């Protein structure tokens, strides 16, 4: 396995939506080939933080960011930073499975096509590899041309993961990827995440503290737009240093 290093360094990140501050002075480092979980009550800024990492917040007209997010030693907010390259390098899986209303094949091939892959054979290879990586190949290999809308929710979510894998990102952001799934589908996605961290860096927002404890290496606890505590997951859950973290993980608020 590769040696872990800090793949993303975040320094003094502030995010404003109009007059309200959504993130306050966030400074943390994300390690490569690991799973970083973001937990905290609703509206604490964890999703906003996640969306800062691939600049999806750009879609909100009133959003304003200060500070820096260094990815591979370059600030993604710098003027002229190639946002297409950023989103290729940092993939995203959303809360609700959102496959396109195309075939399974075309869903996975969408990203490579965006980035200019036209060769049919090459696309076939990418689709197969991505679906295998997402542990979906065995279930869909005989119906790649069927509509993705016919898959179950859990399958759709793994398809969305395969779709991200197909552009060969380094980092995958996941915004509560299992919140719309049943327990069995959730377990499958968790197993998948565990497999994926061998090759990818994963940052995951979750409401489910057991899930954070099960799958992550490090955990950040957000409250009111600030990171209260950022530790190895086992340390954070067993020995929280901050009273507020302890209150939260023991279910005293939120």
């Amino acid at each position, binding site marked *: 396995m590769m040696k872990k290093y800090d793949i993303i360094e975040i320094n003094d990140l502030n995010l404003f939506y109009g007059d309200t501050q959504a993130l306050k002075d966030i400074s943390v480092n994300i390690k490569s080939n690991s799973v970083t979980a973001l937990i905290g009550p609703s509206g604490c800024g964890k999703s906003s933080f996640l969306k800062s990492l691939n600049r999806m917040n750009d879609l909100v007209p009133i959003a304003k960011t200060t500070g820096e997010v260094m990815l591979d030693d370059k600030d993604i907010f710098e003027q002229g930073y190639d946002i297409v390259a950023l989103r290729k390098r940092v993939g995203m899986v959303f809360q609700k499975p959102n496959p*396109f209303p195309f075939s399974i094949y075309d869903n996975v091939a969408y990203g490579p096509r965006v980035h200019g892959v036209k060769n049919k054979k090459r696309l076939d290879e990418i689709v197969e590899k991505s679906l295998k990586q997402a542990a979906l190949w065995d279930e869909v290999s005989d119906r790649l041309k069927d509509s993705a*809308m016919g898959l179950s929710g859990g399958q759709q979510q793994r398809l969305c993961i395969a779709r991200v894998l197909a552009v060969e990102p380094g980092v995958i952001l996941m915004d509560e990827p299992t919140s719309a799934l049943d327990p069995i589908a959730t377990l499958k996605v968790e197993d998948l995440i565990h497999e994926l961290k061998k090759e990818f860096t994963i940052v995951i927002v979750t409401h489910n503290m057991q899930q954070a404890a099960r799958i992550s290496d490090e955990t950040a606890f957000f409250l009111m737009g600030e990171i209260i505590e950022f530790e190895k997951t086992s340390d954070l859950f067993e020995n929280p240093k901050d009273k507020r973290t302890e209150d939260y993980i023991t279910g005293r608020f939120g």
Partner: protein
Amino acid sequence: MNRKFGRLKDTLGFVQIGLSALVTIGILGLILYYILLKGIPNISWGFLTTGFDSEYHGIADILLTTIFIIGITLVIAVPIGVFAAIYLSEYAKQGRIVRIIRFSIESLAGIPSIIYGLFGYIFFVLLLGLKFSLLSGGFTLSILVLPTIIRSTEEALKTVPKSYKEASLALGASRLYTLFKITLPSALSGIMSSVILSVGRIVGESAAVFMTAGMVYRLPGSIMDSGRTLAVHMFASANEGFSFDETWATAAVLVILVAIINLAARLLTRILSKKFSMGKG
């Protein structure tokens, strides 16, 4: 006493509501009864496939003219209308310009055909010197159907879930790529439906057409010639009163055409809304 009176009032109210619904149905029934009863028996193969000088006083040339003018209108109005709708639903931010654009579209939708006809006559026929011609008619009709196309295309684009666009952007696709690969294909049936709806309007339109494309009963040789569409023909033959049978037949053709067109538009819209509601869970 009072209570009894209240109940009577209630009953009367329900009677009025029921009667109104019946009258609405009744009116349609009456119109359809006449059109179908008097019109359909007079529609013959010869009527549909020959020109005026045949024994049938056929409408073949008129149907062709109608198709030409539909073609001209769509070539002009569809790109402009669809682009405008894309701007409004995908790019526009709230602001003065958008408010002015929306006001203009709503106002255009409220302008009656006779004003379009008058304007087309003044502007295209006289000022630009296009004379009474299919082209003058096409230009005029393009403005007339613009609000229809813009509004219903915008509706169609709005049904495309935001999550699709997000997913595409998150995969590194540009806004434009997302528009052409995700948004437009997803909304395609809805956009088709808006085009078909505007065809329905063109087919049924008469006031704006006869003041710009003329009323001459012949097959136009080019788009600079004048000609007569089906609805204008309907008006002319009603006004001249030369044959009740043929006029009813024309009416029937007109109504059946418009009904089929509107039905097709509705089916396409339904396909669009179904597309996004299946396979969840």
